[in-house]
């Protein structure tokens, strides 16, 4: 039954629907963008109506929200958190800094393109992005999940060596456990 292709499709559809409507966010408040999370979650914009909800630990979270610039120092932690999350998992790059460095484009101490280090599913641009933009980003993620295209985790697994190489370039004292998913 499970092997049957059609039924697999149906199961996938239902699962994706559920995943789409239940997004548990681990907001990694690395940069100034974290300030936009509270308005997004509270009364004014109320992201919870989309099924978005904060998660306390990476073990429970579905989405890793990188809010703003990532310094070299925090990158290691972010990678660690991402690797601890359970499959399926998604990454949202939040703010321009995650796309190209934003106003820190020439900083010696921040990483410019997040996608080189973690498989970003959705970028939300803006500096800062307003809560509406954030909600729109979540909606985009939901859409991608429903379509089954939010497969950043698979991508990460497939291209682990490339990602690792990039990560190790930034992080000189690499003492992390192997990613064993």
């Amino acid at each position: 039954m499970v092997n049957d292709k059609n039924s697999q499709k149906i199961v996938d559809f239902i699962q994706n629907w559920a995943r789409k409507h239940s997004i548990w966010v681990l907001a990694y408040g690395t940069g100034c963008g974290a300030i936009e999370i509270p308005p997004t979650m509270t009364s004014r914009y109320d992201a919870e109506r989309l099924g978005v909800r904060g998660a306390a630990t990476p073990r429970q979270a579905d989405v890793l929200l990188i809010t703003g610039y990532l310094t070299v120092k925090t990158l290691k932690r972010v990678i660690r958190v991402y690797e601890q999350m359970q499959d399926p998992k998604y990454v949202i790059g939040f703010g321009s800094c995650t796309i190209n460095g934003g106003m820190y484009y020439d900083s010696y101490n921040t990483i410019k393109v997040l996608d080189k280090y973690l498989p970003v599913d959705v970028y939300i641009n803006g500096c800062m992005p307003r809560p509406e933009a954030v909600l729109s980003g979540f909606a985009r993620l939901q859409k991608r999940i429903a379509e089954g295209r939010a497969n950043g985790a698979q991508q990460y697994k497939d291209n682990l060596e490339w990602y690792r190489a990039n990560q190790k370039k930034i992080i000189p004292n690499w003492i992390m456990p192997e990613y064993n998913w």
Partner: protein
Amino acid sequence: MEMIHIIFLIFLGGAVLTYFSGKISKVLQDIFFLASVLVPAYLFFAYVGAGREATLSLGGITLIWGVNHFSWLFSLIVLGLGSMAAIYAIGYMKGKKRKGYFYFNFILSIMAMMGILLSIDLISFFIFWEIMTWSSYLVTIYNGHDIQRIGIKYFVFSAIGAYAMLMAIVIVHHLTGSFLMSSMINFYPNMSLSMQIWIPVMFLLAFGVKAAMMPLHVWAPDAYSNAPMAYTSIFSGALSKMGIYGMVIVLVTMINQIPQGFWFREVIAWLGGITAAIGTLWAIKQDDAKKLLAYSSVAQLGYIITGIAIGTELGMLAGLFLAVMHALFKGTLFMVTGAIEKQTGTTNFNEVTGLIRKMPWTFIAALLSIIALAGIPPLGGFVGKWMLYESLITSNHYLLVIVIFFSSTAAFLYCYKFLFGFFLGQEEKEWAHVKEAPAVMVVPMLIMAVMMFVLGTFPGIILKPINSGLMDLGFVDSFKHLWESSVILNVWGNHVVLQPILYWIIGIFVFFMIFLTWKGFKTTRYVSTKDISSSGEVPADDENLTFSVGFMQPFMRAVAPAMRRQIDKYYNGIADGLESLFEFIRRIYTGNGQTYTIYVIVFVVIVLLFKNILF
């Protein structure tokens, strides 16, 4: 020569032989040791039944030994637990010093306990009581750690108790002209009121000390934690039950005969309840497993005392059942602690963590005993607790129920602390080398764990002997009206409700086990305890992330006012005051010969002045 004589001779000879054979060969010593515990145990259960008697005449006093069902029940605890602890001790004592010393006192303790149980006359009761005291004292100071405080404290309390008992015994002898227990009991209703009150009080002082009853319990935590764990398991499991044994006899056969007995039982029941509460609170505070278990023993003995002090059939059954269970699970827990001590060298929760994958069998034994201790069904502790509550409610001890329930709930805190402290938490690199304890230590623990399970599911196995024991003490057969009115244990040994519940539990458990491990569902994988979500930080190998210092601090803060007053401090104050007084008395001897001469003259003058009063 009766079998009882032979048993005592084997104990005695075995003890001496064991001691001296250590000079020849360690293996021989172990064999002698095991033989001198196991052979008498076998002989006792095989050949000595209720009604057998033996006598020995010493110094114009006839010592009489015999068995009834009640003492047989306690013999079961002593010899059963003793045998297990003896097997365990072989492993535990391997490579330790003073082995012969330990074995010698171990055997003597078991002999003394058997002697107490078999004694029909008070003198042999007292003799064995004292032998038990000093042999256990000698083991208590085995480690040589802080013995001037711990050991002496234990012995002083024991001695005060024992001397009170001695007084009672000689007064009884004065009143009845006989040292027989039965004559004491028969004469008891004819005594004057003050004697009716004081004689039980004096006996209860002795038994209360051994049973670690509230104001007399201060020796217990130190002594229990200081003795080698192989011995503590019988110290706490069996030796303290001697106090319970005596208490039951005094309460049932003497105090029940007088109208004032009600107040006696009330007071003792409340003391038991308070003991349970205080013991529990202090157990939660301890950072050392030995201390924790020691205080826990105090608390558990409190339940037992409460149960037997209530005096109803159900209360008695509850107390005695709990006594048996306590022997099992506390014996096992002390053995577990001993195994951990043996393997890691420490019993401090702040040091040892994460042994579950290294010592799985020990963990299983510990888990089962903890479940039994906490009184969680389906293990045996629950049945006892249930009966205790039932008896307390039916005998209108409402506030006592609350106290007992409080301590029993708070017991979860230390239960968890014990399991977490040793077995759970981070698996530190420091303890990566730890191996499972040798089989000779693990097997007794597991046997006892299985026993707990069996007794929890089929409590009738042990309730039946308890009932016949109580009948020997003069209770009516509680079989009929107790077991028909309560549904939980409907038929002897084959009760109808707990077992289905057990099946349900197992069924549901298995279902969810399958659910969680079902391959087709999704994979679950093991990751090490270093791989935890700690804010993205990667803990280094030597980084200790375990949370164990100040483990129950919030709770301790909540109950801090209750723990500010320690009874220990009052005793210390008394002891200090006495020592200063003695120091003052010592200074009477000034060292000056003339002063002594003056003393002589003063003595003469004073005596001459008071000669009319004196002569």
